[in-house]
């Protein structure tokens, strides 16, 4: 059995993480160890560093209250930072002693609830940021953007006369109109129903790529992040825990938090013995050079575990959840450990059936040190 085990990373916070490892290009946006959010109702962000290359899309992913929106608002200039620096195209936007007002930053933002001006028509909303333009240029630019987002003919409507998807298109067009250096999107799909979300996700992706816009998108939905992003930055409690490509995040999560946040994962306790990791469901090679007798956790995705019914099996089917193209089973092992595995929907196995567990591929098994038992 050949196993790939990701070595445990060094503390992800202390090192700055570049989103594009092999680029000599100057980054569009650079966050250098920023700390912010000392108002009572604002989640704090600590020592966060990020680079973003021109034209790239980055997703800030994390549970609510993790500081992802605070980070976005700090870039836009709505929150002050108390340490670190924010650079855009080499220009300082903010530092501990300097705060460029939001209106001078040239950073566009699409708000979670769109924040369309309710007393202005679609046209006036989009033209709001083109205040200093020549009237003829302004008109052409507005038309251009409405074409881009597919809102031709709705120029004179008011926000309350538009559907959720149309409102979002206006918000995107309005943010792009003054040609910002980059675009920030705060949970852009959270106000749409699921069908519309998928449609708008594709639509937004097309617009961003077509306009070669550098963008940061905040979301708590990992599927959204995977679908949209060149790079995903996962945050937890105000700290950036991992920043990588979607594939990298999925296959090599840096800690059990990331592993569990981006999809269902089984974590099984094991112990290092004779250079191998012994667990209840099999042995794995010790590629992370853990010392003997160390307690570790092995993470395996449900897709990598199968079972076969057997009278002598030590597992017992406890739950079954039909998910369409697959069925998710919960298997209770004799030790009390619960294992989830994905099987084809046919045949259907009954609850209480005794089964034997197989790990089909260990490609995706990840080993973490086990937290000290209290």
């Amino acid at each position, binding site marked *: 059995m050949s196993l790939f085990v990701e070595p445990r990373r060094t503390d992800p916070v202390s090192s700055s993480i570049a989103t594009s490892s092999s680029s000599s290009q100057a980054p569009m946006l650079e966050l250098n160890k920023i*700390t912010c959010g*000392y108002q009572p109702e604002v989640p704090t962000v600590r020592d966060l560093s990020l680079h973003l290359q021109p034209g790239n899309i980055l997703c800030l992913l994390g549970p609510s209250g993790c500081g992802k929106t605070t980070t976005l608002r700090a870039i*836009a*200039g*709505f929150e*002050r930072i*108390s340490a670190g620096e924010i650079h855009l195209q080499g220009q300082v936007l903010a530092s501990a002693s300097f705060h460029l*007002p*939001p*209106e*001078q*930053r*040239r*950073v*566009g*933002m699409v*708000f*979670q*609830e769109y*924040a*369309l*001006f*309710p*007393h202005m028509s679609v046209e006036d909303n989009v033209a*709001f*940021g083109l*205040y200093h333009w020549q009237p003829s240029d302004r008109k052409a630019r507005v038309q251009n953007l409405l074409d881009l987002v597919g809102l031709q003919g709705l120029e004179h409507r008011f926000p309350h006369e538009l559907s959720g998807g149309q409102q979002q298109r206006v918000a995107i067009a*309005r*943010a792009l*109109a*003054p040609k910002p250096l980059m675009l920030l999107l705060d949970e852009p799909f959270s106000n749409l129903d699921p069908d519309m979300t998928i449609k708008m996700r594709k639509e937004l992706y097309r617009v961003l790529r077509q306009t070669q816009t550098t963008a940061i998108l905040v979301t708590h939905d990992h599927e959204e992040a995977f679908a949209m992003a060149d790079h995903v930055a996962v945050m937890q409690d105000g700290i950036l825990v991992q920043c990588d490509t979607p594939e990298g995040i999925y296959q090599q999560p840096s800690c059990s938090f990331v592993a569990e946040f981006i999809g269902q994962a089984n974590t099984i306790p094991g112990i290092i013995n004779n250079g191998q990791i012994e667990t209840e469901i099999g042995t794995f090679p010790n590629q992370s050079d853990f010392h003997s007798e160390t307690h570790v956790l092995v993470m395996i995705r449900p897709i990598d575990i199968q079972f076969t019914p057997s009278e002598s099996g030590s597992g017992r089917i406890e739950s079954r959840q039909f998910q369409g193209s697959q069925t998710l089973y919960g298997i209770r092992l004799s030790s009390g450990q619960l294992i989830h595995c994905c099987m084809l929907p046919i045949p259907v196995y009954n609850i209480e059936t005794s089964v034997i567990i197989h790990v089909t591929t260990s490609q995706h098994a990840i080993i973490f040190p086990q937290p000290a038992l209290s």
Partner: protein
Amino acid sequence: MVRHTQLTPLSLVGVSIAALLTFPLLYVTYAAFTGDLSQAGNLWNTRLPELLTNTISLAMGVSLATLTLGVSTAWIITRYQFWGRAFWDWGFVLPLAIPSFVLAYVYTYLLDTAGPVEQTWQWLTNSEAHIPSPYSFTGALVVMTLNTFPYVYLLARAAFQNFNLSFEEAAQATGATRRETFWRVSLPLIRPALVASMFLVVLYVVSDFGAVSLLRFQTFTYAIYQQITGRFDYQSAALLSLLLVGFALVFLFAERWFRKQSRFYQTSGRVRTATPKPCSMTRVLAINLSFLVIFIAAFGLPVFLLIQWTLTAWTNGEVGTSFGTYIGNSVLLSATAATAALVLGTPLAYLASRIPSKLHVACLQGAYIGYVLPGPVAALALLMLFTDMIPILYGTIFVLILAYLIHYLPAGLQAMESALQQVNPNLEEAARNLGAKGIRTFMQITFPLVRKGFSAAWLLMFLLCMKELPATLLLRPIGFDTLAVRIWLEASEELYQLAAPPALLIVLLTIPAVFLLSKKNWQAG
């Protein structure tokens, strides 16, 4: 870690405004305790026992009477279906359109010795019996009750309308009769609304000057006025003022405290509300008759008399060009004060709602000081401040407008605050994000969206200023009379016809604002 203190220029503006509004009270406090305090002991021995007894007993009496009147009318209107219900529903709000001193002056006529009520009573009973004089506790009680019961009515009505019927049904399911259910379940459950309305009434009664002065009933406000105008004894007036302010503050904090407590009374989730029940013919008649008596006493008869007197004055040619001058003076003062209040209130309300730092919230709280400064007290504070420090401005309309501003800004500020809170701050951030500076953001985004609320605030402050009496009496430039001042001066001389035209005008102007008020959601807590 050092927390950011963002002392922007706008913050400094806010601090200056709050200082302007609170400084007079601070100065009057300082002035009360400097100088010869022997007067204070004298005051304590001679006037204070009477003033305390009168003020407290009037407040208690009016609260009890308004609670009875307000709750019973609200209960009947929300629970019974009867002919005339739609009219009474808004009819009981109308008495709020009559300023207390107008009602008082009508009642001095009605209840006077050999007045219409006494004559009718003597004719009915065929006796020489006298009715209580209007210049008494009874007179003040009747006038203040009729003038303020609509507040209780409004709050109780809202409480009964939002009342969860399941509580009553649960009580009846255990075998309680309707009467028991009302006393043991319904009434205790609307207690937050009752307490809130009682605080409102008490605050109104202790700070009223117009009615008690015309009825010559010695309460704090009247005594303060007399100390200033009759004896020029500012220090005693200041001491009395501080007692009154303390009294009002206790009530204000008690109300805030109670409001916090009362959150527990509110039910969450789906609420089934009562549908009005139809009732028998005799009941319909009885309800309409008793409602008519209340309505006539509180609104119908006073307005009828005002119209009659106005017509007499008109035909006698007693409504001269000076009437136009009084209207002009009133409108000039009120419009200036309301506009100034709007301009000064905007930064305070804006800062407190957008950047609610301790400093900004404190500034806003400071602006609410007018709530606990009855008219004579606000006037005294400015009088002492300006005669001592800037005598050149004393006796100009500037001081008067400042008094209006301090006194009535709180009323407008509430409307402005709620208007600003309804504007999502994201809209302003979006504008900033699109390159708009602070001023353009305010003019193009915030202001158009709060315009309605701000207009209502302006109108409310304008009308309150039109009715303002004690501060105007004390601070107006010589010969500069307003409608309210004319009403009070003529009524003091019992020249009923001459007082009627300005009184009628104020009542008519106030009616639309009263409807605005009645539509507001009057929920306690």
